[in-house]
């Protein structure tokens, strides 16, 4: 199971890096979504994977020896929520860049740092 997750995470990261390096802002955002999901999966796997053992313990009973770790799942949930907010902002920003700079190619975006004319 861990092996499968590791491969998935690797593929996600590879695709994300490819997208992020392809000199187009929209692709960059897609890459960012993929790589952040890879990070979330990493946290999830870090809590050890258990099959069908929810961490629900009846009152008075001893803790079972094998149960899912609830903490990483809570962390992933937080990270997803935060990530959602950040991506919403990033996408609007990219849209705004498109309307006010007329380009989504980072190489063309030189307004804040204009190229010096050769002297």
């Amino acid at each position, binding site marked *: 199971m861990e092996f499968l997750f590791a491969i998935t995470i690797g593929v996600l990261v590879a695709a994300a890096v490819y997208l*992020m390096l392809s000199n187009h*802002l929209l692709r*960059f955002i897609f890459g*960012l979504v993929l*790589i*952040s999901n*890879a*990070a*979330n999966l*990493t*946290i*999830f*796997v*870090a*809590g*050890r994977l258990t099959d069908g053992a929810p961490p629900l313990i009846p009152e008075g009973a001893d803790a079972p020896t094998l149960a899912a770790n609830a*903490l*990483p799942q809570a*962390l992933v949930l*937080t*990270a997803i929520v*935060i990530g959602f*907010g*950040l991506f919403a*902002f*990033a996408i609007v*920003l*990219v849209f*705004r*860049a498109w309307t*006010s*700079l007329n380009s989504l190619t*980072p190489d063309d*975006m*030189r*307004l*804040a*740092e204009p190229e010096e004319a050769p002297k």
Partner: protein
Amino acid sequence: MSWLLALPVVIPFLTAVLAFLTRQSPLGRWISVAGSSLLLVASIILMATVLRDGVIAGQMGNWPAPFGITLVADLLSAVMVLITAIVAVAVSIYAIADVDEGMERLGYHALFNMLIAGVVGAFITGDLFNLYVWFEVMLIASFGLLVLGGRPEQIDGGVKYVALNLVSTIMFLTGIGLLYGMTGTLNMADLASAVDGADQRLLTIVAVLFMIAFGVKAAVFPLFFWLPASYHTPAFSVSAVFAGLLTKVGVYALLRMFTLVFDHDTAFTHTILLWVAGLTMVVGVLGAAAQSDMRKILSFHIVSQIGYMILGLALLTPLAIVGAVFYLVHHIVVKANLFLIAGVAQRIAGGTELSRIGGLYKSAPLLAVLFVVPAFSLAGFPPLSGFWAKFLLVKAALDVQGWIIAGIALAVGLLTIYSMTKIWAQAFWEPHPDGVEPKLSSLSNRERAAMLIPIAGLAILTVVIGTIPEPFVQFAEASAAQLLDPTAYITAVLGEQP
């Protein structure tokens, strides 16, 4: 005890909510000033308590550490919160004159206070995942502030800032995941001992992941490119609070993690940090020398100065950490002040591009004096605060026979003087190219007071640190001792260890 720790976070949060509700009226700016002043009071009380009782910790929701979220303040955290509050007060007063009503209606004051809440939270938390959450609070508020107003240059700078910071965030998150998988805890005090049982080679990999994540935030070489691309685009009060505080949160996180948790393989990690420190100093100062806009010069100098702080961390001797802590505090005051002064220069002389302004020395001598103090302090002139900060670090480098790095630090200091004299000569000494005489009296009384009082206050603080450095150095020594021997920190969080 925990209300004392929670207050510095709660106050700016409540202020942000109130400021958001009143964003349509001019009341927002006064709420912001009042909120920052309350924060200052709370952080002074926190500082006094930490000085009296040593490290204090509080468990949120009464979950005992390491299971719950811990807030903890040692001397370093307390002084960072205090200096954040000082900058917050200065900038919120300055914003009365600097931020126009359009930006206020868009929620400038709410975002500003949210940013302060994020910064304070990052300084005061004792939990790694909680640190991530505070980073995000700070980040989303800074995104908003950076593009508020929506000029095309701001959007351009904003895209680069947002993109690179989001990548660093994901690195941080991955690092947290791996560290949790290896140790089963995210409480920083608990991690300090929990990492001993982990695979040391894997731990080094995770350490490098954290180094990159915090390195982007701190703007070290070669990860700093977002900073000079964006810091000169927003409003001046925004630039000032960014310049003063944001990169320093990254430095603080490095300082905390690489003394408390990742000190297992210093021959590897801290050697990288030493190279990074040297290159950051040199590249930053050379970048500044090539610029001709006041804010761009100052932005590159942030990068160069970050190098000094990383140098202190990399050497990891008691004196070096003392220097790093001292530098951190001195730099926040000086750098925020220089950006505020650039704002006044822009107002009365009509720009920050050096070739288009001038004559400030003749017609606005008060501003000239106020500029000289932080500028010379930045360059390291005695008897200002920057001299002692550089002196401590260079002495620390010489003590461990680091001749080359000490030489670099001194040479970079010289080049800093070059940049400062460039600003001085072109903006203050040379006559204005359009023949006008920029005067402070062109500002209304209220604007003049709101802009000059914070600048003067921060300048006085710089002079005080410089002329009576002894208590400040002693304080830095005490906090460096806490960093290098974290027993008190760990005991405060987890209780007595067997």
